[in-house]
């Protein structure tokens, strides 16, 4: 076209980014990449496979397939390197800083390699991915420097096995590697099969940055290699980002291994537009939400919820905007949407859109011409999709948006939460009252107000429900890569064996029942079990709880949601009141403990005293476990809010029947959770006496529920239950493994003792922030501002 013609047409033309440096890099490596283990590239025991450019199908290079021997070698190298690496935070800070600098220095090469391998627009890899990678290393260089002072009492977990997805290859590497290294861990990282190149380039940067041998190991390969990494005995921590199906498998396979686990999985995030929103800006928000990275974003705002009065107007604006989105060669700097990452993914998107249309969705696609080869899909909107439709429930992982309407804020929340997932949500309104009302009600780990897909190293990211658990970024993310220093010294729990009944206790027979919804409830089974003292005295009976009792207790706990809405001061009053009423009956409880456990009068009195003390501790904490406002570089308030997890199943330790139980219950309810407790198996009576205390302490019905019975049986029901948000387990190693395995179905959080006993009288082990962290989910709410 001549300049004269262009002057008339005013088309954009193409603005290609050069790939020559990237091709030269591939050339230098003979288009073949080995495994990066113990500071050097080494040939795999397995073979090689091709990695393609999805925009044109051309083979870029051959990638090594790591087998079990290779993964062994990598884990061994990581293990060997971990001790020395953990020693000096300041030294780690220098290395992470060097990595950040190198990422910046080689930013364009990294961006081009990423785009060639993944298909994302060069504009996004250049302006979003790589700057965020550098930012992540800078930020965590700082945490390495500060670990000694800011993470006192915590030690590295050890060797982290990390498996990352193909949608943000290098960024996900940074999210995994930076915090792990900062906290003194070493890593074995498995990139996604189709997008390994930027990780291998990063390996070169590790050498240049002076990362000690074995601290970072990169093993490429397919899902088998991923499984070898996550299930390796030498791995202490598994961090996975990817599909919910694979995440569930990892949860099952690592159950009982003692591995710490973070899962960042799928989503079907809601994008709510209220009738007072700046609609033109909200349209751009949709572009950022679902047409960023071809929609291949776990937190993509893929469900558009429109308030009825503005729905038609908004759709009209959105349709017009779709027509100006340019789909094409990802290396062209003037395109908005690049290539879908692979042929397989493209076919999946096509199939799902076909399902959406078959189920009655009104299909709207821009009419632009797509490149005639390569994996491209146009921006797509399906209107009038009902919440029962497949596309309203299933993640597409492509540039596909579905829309529906709502009438009221309450209905918006109900629709937003009508999903198995809980990763992110977006809401648009000019009304700060509405925004701050809705954000806490949405079940999600991240909420964006008047913006979408904002990320930063200083703000935690992660989900709830089947979107996984754990946070990446921010102070909250560091705890995924440390453990309390005392855990190494813990001893296995002792089995308590009691004799047969020899005599009956004197006095009137009191038969405690289950405590559900603030009332005593006979066990559904109609059976009771004897409670015997160490001397063979029959102390009484407790109900044999069953699945149905757990079901009822969970229902009562779910119904008691007002507790979560009560302010911390109010909850503190109740907890103090429980402590006060327990004080009045301290002698009675001490006698009960002595009778049940054989503890001396002094020991029993000490346990009661410690219990009262623990209640005071959490009465104190109830209004002090503050969230944070993160320092993000955007002009935005990023509020890290501590939210109650929801309904927690507490499987209480057998030992210290009163203190152990209260040590779990008090932090949970202090943070606004409701609990279903299974008390000490051999010594359940103290718990049952406690409900009389609750009844005189203004504790609302349903906040605390107690079901006695066979511990692991009831624990299984709780771990299986879709309505239970977390389970804390103190019991045998087998029981702990069972709880973790059973939690895989719902992907709930778990906190298990791995069969180890804590010293409940030791405040370091028995109380504090660790408990509060497990009792809360951090929700990051982004609120940009400007008059």
């Amino acid at each position, binding site marked *: 076209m001549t300049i004269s013609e262009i002057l008339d047409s*005013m088309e954009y*033309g193409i603005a290609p980014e050069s790939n020559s440096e990237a091709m030269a890099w591939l050339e230098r490596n003979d288009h073949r990449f080995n495994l990066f283990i113990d500071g050097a590239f080494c040939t795999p025991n397995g073979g090689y496979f091709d990695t393609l450019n999805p925009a044109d199908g051309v083979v870029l290079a051959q990638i090594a397939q790591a087998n079990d021997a290779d993964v062994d070698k990598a884990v061994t190298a990581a293990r060997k390197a971990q001790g020395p690496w953990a020693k000096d935070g300041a030294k780690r800070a220098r290395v992470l800083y060097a990595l950040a600098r190198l990422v910046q220095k080689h930013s364009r090469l990294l961006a081009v390699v990423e785009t060639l391998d993944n298909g994302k627009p060069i504009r996004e890899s250049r302006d979003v991915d790589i700057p965020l990678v550098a930012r992540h290393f800078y930020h965590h260089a700082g945490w390495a420097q500060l670990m000694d002072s800011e993470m006192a009492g915590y030690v590295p977990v050890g060797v982290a096995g990390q498996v990352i997805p193909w949608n943000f290859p290098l960024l996900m590497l940074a999210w995994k590697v930076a915090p792990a290294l900062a906290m003194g861990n070493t890593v074995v990282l498995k990139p996604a099969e189709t997008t390994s190149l930027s990780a291998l380039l990063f390996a070169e940067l590790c050498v240049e940055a002076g990362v000690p041998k074995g601290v970072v190991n990169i093993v490429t390969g397919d899902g088998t290699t991923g499984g070898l990494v996550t299930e390796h005995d030498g791995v202490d921590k598994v961090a996975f980002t990817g599909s919910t199906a694979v995440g569930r498998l990892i949860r099952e396979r690592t159950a009982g291994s003692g591995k710490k686990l973070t899962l960042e999985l799928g989503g079907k995030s809601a994008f709510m537009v209220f009738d007072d929103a700046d609609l033109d*800006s909200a349209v751009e928000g949709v572009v950022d939400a679902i047409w960023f990275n071809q929609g291949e974003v776990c937190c993509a705002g893929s469900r558009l919820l429109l308030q009825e009065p503005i729905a038609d107007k908004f759709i009209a604006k959105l349709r017009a905007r779709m027509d100006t989105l340019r789909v094409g060669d990802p290396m062209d700097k003037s395109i908005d949407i690049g290539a879908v990452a692979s042929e397989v993914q493209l076919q999946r998107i096509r199939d799902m859109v076909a399902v959406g249309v078959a189920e009655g969705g009104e299909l709207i696609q821009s009419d632009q011409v797509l490149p005639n080869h390569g994996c491209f899909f146009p921006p797509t909107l399906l209107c009038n999709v009902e919440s029962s439709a497949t596309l309203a429930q299933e993640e597409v992982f492509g540039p596909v948006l579905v829309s529906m309407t709502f009438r009221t804020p309450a209905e918006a929340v109900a629709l937003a939460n009508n999903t198995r997932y809980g990763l992110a949500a977006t809401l648009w309104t000019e009304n700060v009252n509405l925004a701050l009302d809705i954000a806490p009600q949405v079940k999600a780990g991240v909420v964006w107000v008047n*913006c979408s897909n904002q990320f930063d190293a200083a703000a935690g990211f992660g989900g709830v429900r089947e979107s996984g658990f754990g946070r990446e970024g921010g102070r909250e993310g560091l705890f995924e890569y440390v453990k309390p220093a005392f855990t190494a010294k813990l001893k296995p729990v002792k089995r308590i064996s009691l004799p047969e009944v020899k005599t009956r206790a004197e006095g009137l027979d009191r038969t405690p029942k289950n405590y559900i919804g603030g009332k005593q409830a006979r066990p559904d089974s109609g059976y009771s079990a004897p409670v015997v003292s160490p001397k063979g005295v029959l102390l009484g009976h407790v109900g044999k709880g069953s699945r149905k009792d757990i079901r009822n207790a969970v229902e009562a706990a779910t119904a008691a949601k007002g507790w979560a809405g009560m302010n911390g001061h109010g909850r503190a009053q109740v907890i103090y009141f429980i402590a006060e009423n327990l004080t009045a009956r301290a002698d009675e409880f001490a006698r009960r403990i002595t009778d049940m456990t054989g503890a001396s009068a002094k020991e029993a009195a000490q346990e009661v005293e410690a219990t009262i003390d623990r209640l005071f501790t959490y009465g104190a904490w109830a209004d002090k476990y503050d969230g944070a406002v993160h320092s993000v570089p955007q*002009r935005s308030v990023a509020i890290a809010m501590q939210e109650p997890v929801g309904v927690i199943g507490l499987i209480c330790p057998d030992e210290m029947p009163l203190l152990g139980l209260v040590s779990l219950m008090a932090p949970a309810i202090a943070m606004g959770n409701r609990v279903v407790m299974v008390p000490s198996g051999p010594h359940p009576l103290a718990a049952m006496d406690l409900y009389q205390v609750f009844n005189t302490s203004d504790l609302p019905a349903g906040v605390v529920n107690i079901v006695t019975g066979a511990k692991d049986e009831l624990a299984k029901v709780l771990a299986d239950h879709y309505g239970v948000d977390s389970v804390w387990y103190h019991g045998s190693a087998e029981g702990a493994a069972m709880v973790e395995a059973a939690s895989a179905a719902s992907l709930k959080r778990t906190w298990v003792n791995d069969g180890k006993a804590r010293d409940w009288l030791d405040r370091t082990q028995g109380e504090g922030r660790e408990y509060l962290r497990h009792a809360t989910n951090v929700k990051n709410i982004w609120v940009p501002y400007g008059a």
Partner: protein
Amino acid sequence: MNTSINPHDLPVAGHPRNPGLPLDLEWVMDARANRSAIERRAATYGARRSVKKDHQAAWLIKAISCMDLTTLSGDDTEQRVKRLCAKARNPVRPDILHALGLGDRRITTGAVCVYHEMIPAARRALEGTNIPVAAVSTGFPAGLSPYRLRVQEIRESVAAGAQEIDIVISRRHVLSGNWQALYDEVREFTEACGDAHIKAILATGELGTLRNVARASLVCMMAGVDFIKTSTGKESVNATLPVSLTMVRAIREYRERTGISVGYKPAGGISKAKDSLVYLSLMKEELGRPWLEPNLFRFGASSLLGDIERQLEHHVTGRYSANFRHPIG
């Protein structure tokens, strides 16, 4: 000289005028402008749309043809204005145009913009061209001279031969929320313009919020202006991309509701060739191809042309250019 206006002599010829609407306060009060979101979007035009090589050259020529080449200084003289007009007639060196393959195209700026006293000189200097003369008016830049005189100033400028009138609005009406007063004022200014096209300068740097910018834009369009314009160039903050996006969205909304196309003129602070490309991208993305012509888009600029000339010479020769190689405007 003949001061009557033949619409066919103007670049705006054939473009339907904006008849305006009765003031629709509900619409005005309904306007929303979320600053942080607008800033984020505004930051993307340069990054999302890269215009290179021949396309860049063509786009820069387009920027010239959409330029109101401006001098608004206390020391303006007729000779100074004559020189500026000569530049408006031949904004790019002929050899460069020839090398670009545009030797046979008549490339001029969109208009020349001056104070009232310079209108006759400008008209004389532009005789025989289609380049209209624009005059700033209504007590420019503050707009605080007696109301009667402001209306009269328009009439006198039109009588003196101005084909376009850039009026300034009373910022106080915006800041005090007196939309009716703003509407009435602009309506009367519009009527005073007669056949001359009217551009309303909002002085956005003095309106406090983007929401005020959006509301003032709507009120001015309802009052019948042909263009809305950001700034006088005399405020401490002049044209910015976020302000432009806010105004351009108002133009889009106005067109969606009425079918009437209103023009946009960012003014002040746009001095780099690269900036002009970003503005053109913004117009193309938000309003489409029709807003890349001088009848619907103008840059108010004085030093932008020089930078564009240097870029064009670089495009032609591959060597970076220097100021002295291009005639002064």
